[in-house]
């Protein structure tokens, strides 16, 4: 069965995206809304990949379900768009079966921390060699803007029409307490810093985690009168305070107040595979 290849759209005639080699250009244009931060997050990831200089055949991207989950479909890498919440255990199986593969989980706050929350804390506890990139847009964008595990108190969503009354997760604190080797948070405004964090996270062994705060102008932003995508970036510019090494407990996000970004955790500890392989060596075998 022949398949139709769509022509690559040219935004500016004759100009191509410098990271096009990592993109499935036949799948563009993407589905994301104007003003959404996912394009920036993806682009930072591609620049980070380029900076690392790894063989693209040695990198796999695993996503769950949701707007961020669609990232797996746009990268020209081995990429897996799995079930809702299960990107981390899928990636765990992939990594353990093929240890020389660099495995990156790229998914959203609802996917990774509501339906998939249990998998996150256990992957962090085990210190499995995975880089987890979480785009946090404070709601479930794809399904129409419902309340999520990171929605701030009083946040308006389609399922909290009178304001959210559930306490949100502080993902930085959660990741640090669960045992992640590396924890950073940046916004999609912090292009170069975010790229830097992704490079550090991917280069480092063990479970590494980067939270990426992103505007969702179509859903969360509109309902909470945060303006368009650019206005949300202006909000980040005004309120994000860079505090490397800050206590993760202090990384709570409260609307209208300053919040912390930066690198919170960067520690060395044996990974799951290192521990497993040490046991195998004790038994006189090899893996």
């Amino acid at each position, binding site marked *: 069965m022949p*398949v139709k290849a769509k022509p690559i759209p040219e935004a500016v005639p004759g100009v191509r995206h410098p990271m096009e080699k990592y993109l499935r250009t036949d799948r563009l244009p993407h589905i994301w809304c104007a003003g959404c931060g996912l394009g920036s997050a993806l682009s930072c990831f591609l620049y980070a990949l380029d900076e690392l200089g790894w063989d693209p055949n040695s990198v796999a991207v695993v996503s769950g379900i949701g707007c961020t989950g669609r990232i797996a479909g746009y990268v020209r890498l081995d990429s897996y768009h799995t*079930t809702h919440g299960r990107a981390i255990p899928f*990636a*765990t199986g992939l990594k*353990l079966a*093929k240890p020389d593969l660099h495995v990156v989980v790229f998914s959203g706050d609802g996917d990774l921390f509501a339906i998939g929350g249990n998998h996150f804390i256990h992957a962090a506890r085990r210190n499995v060699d995975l880089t987890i990139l979480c785009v946090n847009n404070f709601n479930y964008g794809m399904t129409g803007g419902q309340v999520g595990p990171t929605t701030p108190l009083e946040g308006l969503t389609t399922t909290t029409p009178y304001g959210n009354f559930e306490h949100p997760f502080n993902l930085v604190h959660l990741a640090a307490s669960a045992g992640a080797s590396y924890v950073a948070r940046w916004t999609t405004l912090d292009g170069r810093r975010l790229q830097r964090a992704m490079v550090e996270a991917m280069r480092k062994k063990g479970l590494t985690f980067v939270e990426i705060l992103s505007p969702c102008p179509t859903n969360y932003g509109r309902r909470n009168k945060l303006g368009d995508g650019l206005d949300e970036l202006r909000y980040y510019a005004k309120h994000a305070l860079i505090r490397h090494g800050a206590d993760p407990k202090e990384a709570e996000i409260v609307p209208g107040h300053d919040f912390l970004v930066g690198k919170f955790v960067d520690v060395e500890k044996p990974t799951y595979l290192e521990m497993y392989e040490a046991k195998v060596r004790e038994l006189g075998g090899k893996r």
Partner: protein
Amino acid sequence: MPGKAILSGVHFMNGDEAIAEGAIAAGCRFFAAYPITPQSEIAERLAWRLPRVGGMFIQMEDELGAMAAVVGAAWGGAKAMTATSGPGFSLMMENIGLAVMTETPCVVVDVQRGAPSTGLPTAVGQGDMMQARWGSHGHYEIIALCPASPQEAFDLTVRAFALSERFRVPVLIMTDEVVGHMYERVEIPAEVPEAPRRRPQVPPDRFLPFEPDPDLVPPMACAGEGYRIHVTGLTHDERGYPDMSAEAHDRLVRRLCDKILRFRDEFTVYEAVDLDDAEIAVVSYGISARVAHGALALAREQGIKAGMLRLITAWPFPDPVVRSLADRVRGVVVVELNLGQMSREVERVVRGKVPVIGVYHAGGRIHTPEEVLSGIEEVQRCR
């Protein structure tokens, strides 16, 4: 001490252990599971054995994760398996569906116990047979095998891996607590051929990851092999790209079913016991078939010519086998540890041609031969 992968020779082991050894012998080098009775001996044996044969064992945080890890490991190139019982089987349904949709070869063992819900954790049941068939959402075909002894548990596990690679589909081993915990002689052969994975025959730039071979099964490119493919649980086209059209969906779902149904003769296995002259046929599987064996002897003592069709391939249901049986006998007795699951299939295929009687028990214990005999006598009286 590094272990031998294939423990050739004669052993005394239970069905659970035989499944673990069958998996290793078949080349399984990845096992992920969550503790549950009566599956424990499978996981414990593999936790002990896999690190010694270069394999990977991981105890996951739940069965959702275990099944997802198995699917991921298969895409990492491993032959991968998980094992569970009813409550965990329910949790695995989501990612069994992912494995069906993404055509991921893997093996799932369900050591059935009394159910629904937590039910009877330590006692036998066969109530998950329809869940094996339809438990994940949507319409699909899957292969399920039912061992009736530890030896068969070993043999069918080896076969399950071969079928999962041949058809790129999850293969279920639907065993039960009694076969799982029953100790018997298990003979492990000197060699077990390793089922090959179907590899791409064209370079990456010409490879369409979901373009099937003439037998409807596509070759599989695993992660890190240079093919850089996209795999999604969404309805997809031959490139693996999402395609939300009704046409693409119907085409894909039909192919996923046809790739198995069209070749069912290849893998439909059953045991015919004294069926040559039988007037009454028992249809059973797993431990219930072991009990029915005794009832056949009792029936023959009374002059009732009874035989048995023991299902080994439970899914896809062997319609042609049961249909031809219905042409030859005067009545059918279905024996199972639920209140009538596979008997629905028997009735569907028999189409009222001969009476079908169920000898059911919800589980917690196996049948007695006398209970099965009374079912045989009952159908014998039907005119």
